């Protein structure tokens, strides 16, 4: 113990702390921002090191931008951007285009039957599903399936993937530095000429993704229903992967409409980080993207989640052992209270020395884990959620009691100087560690610019965390953690299930 006391004392007097106003190492990066006349934004960062380049593109388009009846389209469209263009992915563009109206007509018949709900003629529905598969298969005669993937694979691309969130959708890969130009050729084609081929078989793939991540996973299903309970108006309550029935009925035309509305170059932010020549990148950005016509500017979601008037509690039945999510409505990620909420979260659950970990895992041995996180997005008011997993015979109720008690205790026992110093040191170390990886850096720059029109914002957050005081934490604890502002979702076994199931 003597060693520790020495260590802490030394650090408290050491002049190593970064005052909040001093720019963090990230803010001092020599990033070059280049905005084309059509609004498409590039951020370039040359780094010394191995000759590799990371490309990350964020579009200001996500689950929140979907309209009623088409949930999951943002995500399905993300899959479709890997299917090629009028040039990549086809042997005969004209012949293939001629087949799409035929395919869409069968899809419309399927959707009409599907819409009948309980009155559906399931024989007819299955026949139409088979017909849809047949006719799409016949179009494969003109398809060079996965050609985009092949071109990138043979050029040594790494991390080729994409993901769809509530606020944004991203696409990314890395290339050896000498092949950087390939990105410009492929992406300038993909952003303006996507062809939604193999659409209906991909719709089936997305259904399987939903089953994999949500329907067969206790934690996934709990999270989905928790968000649906917490958000009654704002689209943060809607699953990004989509409601099952809507995934099954979404059409190629809806996906095309989504693309036209949200994938204009003015909604795109590209970060290019690595062993690059910034002048060449700038010239290529102009040459390949300047003549893409601008689209509609992105409009924020008009819906605001109304204030919650009373605690909401739900149970989700699943053949699995219990877990609990406890969420409180908090403001968006750029709000003045966001840094204090982050510190509150770190004081309560950030590591083994945090208050809730000490209590639930180490002292009382009630829980295997306790986490807290914010989400499901950043642009709009969201939730700060605590997630706990009990150790039988302890219960989720005991985890709830501890969380509520520790939130209340912040009023009596504000974060100590040592607790705040720990959080600051971790933020400071994290600010340097995040500079290690070019791909991670490209992701952060692109995301920050897409969300806040400021690539520095992600680094400003580090500095803001360092400036949070104990009184700030107490203030946000008083403001946001009232019982009436919370939603609690508990995973339980159905009452009819074998009562000994939990011990098997």
């Amino acid at each position, binding site marked *: 113990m003597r060693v520790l006391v020495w260590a802490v004392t030394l650090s408290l007097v050491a002049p190593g702390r970064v005052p909040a106003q001093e720019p963090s190492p990230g803010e001092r990066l020599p990033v070059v921002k280049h905005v084309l006349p059509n609004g498409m934004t590039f951020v370039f960062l040359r780094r010394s090191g191995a000759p590799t380049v990371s490309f990350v593109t964020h579009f200001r388009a996500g689950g929140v931008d979907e309209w009623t009846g088409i949930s999951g389209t943002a995500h399905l469209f993300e899959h479709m951007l890997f299917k090629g*263009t009028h040039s*990549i992915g086809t042997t005969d563009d004209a012949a293939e285009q001629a087949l799409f109206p035929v395919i869409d007509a069968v899809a419309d018949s399927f959707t009409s039957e599907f819409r009948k709900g309980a009155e559906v003629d399931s024989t007819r529905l299955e026949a139409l599903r088979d017909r849809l598969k047949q006719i799409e298969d016949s179009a494969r005669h003109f398809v060079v*399936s996965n050609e985009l993937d092949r071109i990138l694979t043979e050029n040594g691309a790494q991390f080729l993937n994409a993901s769809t969130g509530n606020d944004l959708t991203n696409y990314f890969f890395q290339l050896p530095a*000498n092949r950087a130009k390939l990105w410009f050729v492929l992406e300038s084609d993909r952003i303006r000429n996507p062809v939604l081929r193999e659409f209906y078989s991909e719709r089936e793939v997305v259904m399987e993704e939903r089953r994999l991540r949500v*329907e067969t996973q206790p934690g996934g299903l709990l999270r989905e229903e928790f968000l649906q309970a917490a958000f009654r108006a704002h689209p943060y309550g809607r699953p990004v992967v989509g409601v099952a029935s809507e995934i099954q009925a979404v059409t190629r035309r809806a996906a095309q409409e989504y693309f036209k509305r949200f994938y204009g170059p003015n909604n795109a932010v590209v970060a290019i980080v690595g062993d690059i020549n910034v002048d060449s990148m700038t010239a290529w950005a102009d040459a390949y993207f300047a003549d893409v016509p601008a689209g509609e500017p992105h409009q924020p979601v008009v819906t605001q989640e109304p204030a919650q008037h009373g605690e909401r509690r739900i149970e989700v039945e699943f053949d699995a052992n219990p877990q609990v999510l406890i969420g409180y409505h908090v403001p968006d990620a750029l709000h003045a209270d966001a840094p204090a909420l982050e510190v509150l979260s770190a004081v309560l659950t950030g590591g*083994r020395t945090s208050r809730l970990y000490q209590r639930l895992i180490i002292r009382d041995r009630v829980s295997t884990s306790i986490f807290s996180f914010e989400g499901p997005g950043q642009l709009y008011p969201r939730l700060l959620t605590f997630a706990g997993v009990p*150790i039988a015979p302890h219960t989720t109720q005991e985890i709830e009691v501890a969380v509520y008690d520790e939130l209340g205790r912040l009023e009596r026992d504000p974060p100590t100087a040592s607790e705040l110093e720990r959080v600051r040191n971790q933020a400071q170390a994290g600010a340097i560690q995040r500079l290690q990886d070019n791909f991670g850096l490209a992701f952060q720059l692109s995301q920050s610019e897409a969300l806040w029109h400021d690539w520095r914002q992600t680094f400003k957050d580090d500095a803001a965390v360092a400036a949070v005081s104990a009184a700030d934490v107490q203030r946000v604890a008083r403001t946001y953690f009232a019982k009436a502002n919370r939603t609690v979702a508990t995973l339980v076994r159905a009452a009819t299930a074998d009562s000994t199931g*939990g011990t098997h």
Partner: protein
Amino acid sequence: MRPRVLTGILLCAALPAAAQRPGGDTRAQIQALQYPPLRFNPTTPKRVTLSNGVAVYLLEDHSLPLLDVEVVSKVGVANLPDSLWGIGWQADGLMRTGGTTRLSPDSVDQLIEFYALNVFISTGNDQSNASFSGLSRYRDQLLDLGFDLLRNPRNDSSRVRITAGQQLEAWRRRNDQPGSVLNRAWSQVMLGDHPLGRSQVTPNEVSGFTPTRFRWAQARIFCPQNLLIGVSGDFDERTLLARLETEFRGWPACAPGLRPIPALQVTTGPKIVLIEKDVNQTNIRMGHAGGIRVADAPDYFAAQVADFLLGGGGGFNSRLLQRVRSDSGFAYSAFSNWAAETKREALFFAGGQIRAEKTVAGLSLMRQIIGSLATDPVTARDVQLAKDNEVNSFVFRFENAGQIVQQQLGYAVEGLPANWFDIYLKGIQAVTPAQVTDVARRYLHPDRLVIVVVGKPGAFDKPLSTLGPVSTMPVDSIHR
């Protein structure tokens, strides 16, 4: 290297607009791209030996004020006497959380979190690792604490109790997710109770958790003769080596008591095993003994290419993902893994999560695709894809000092030469389509697959028995 013939008549820089019309010529532009040669000579770590014989790989990189220390032990949990497997499997967590003879568990946690150090210790089945990293200005704290955890674990009884409670809870939850059921059933069906197939501690093993037993296992896994060290980042060689000498001073030689890992007995097929679970998507794995070791050149290289093209890295152009996902829409994920190790034979398997209503159709398709590697030969273009990918992506294996040091540690533990990557790349480049077909014919046996299925048979498209005799495995008969 540019393996493809360039048709090079278009000057792409002059013609970007041409590709932007529908039906444009993006493909031609790509073929016309001429890439400058990649100039890159990755740095090599320096290898030195401490006075006690421990090898240290050093690579300085002062671009950021960070330090990373990797410790690898050449032995693992499967080398312990069988009765101590569960002890060994949890020995890593207790080294991190159980305190040291000098520091209480709470003091260790506070030091790590106050200085924002990253400390991971892992006892694996056939080798073990520890990793200590943080800001380089805390170099002494990092090394002192890291080696204290490795040399002098206390295994405080309060923390042993916590670990025991958590392991019992993990046991209760072991069947909550279909993937966990499949992994454990697959290991049991293929390898019986061989330690290399274990990943779950049983309640019986938990009841034997004591500080003394943990200490016995830890002292034999992490002791000087078993260790290799790698250091990368912001350090000064002379100071660091002096510090490492201090950290090892007085650390006694490894005590006896470990065993060689027992030989594997891999189950032979054909065999179909069903574990019932009420889910709308079926988890499937199928495979058999892989038949190949790393030393088996050129078969090893041909098998690597075969696996890439079947479903082990070839992305959407692999046969499994192309046909099961893109063409059929049966699954989100379908993959293969034709593993080969230096020390022993490993497994070949393929798997995926298939829509319940397409279970038998999907299973048949996967089996047929595995067979197709022998009967429907891969083309020269396919093999070129695998080669181009390896050659063009080699730079990603040397992106930073930490990665380069880790690579050398890995080769040293496996007994591979320091220039193994060059040998590997040459081996892959020499593979011919005929060799791929040949290894598929000799080593892959679609008629003798062991198939394990976790799902709801009532929802299947056809009875599983249409594929062969099925044995049902109650979920409670998975022993761990």
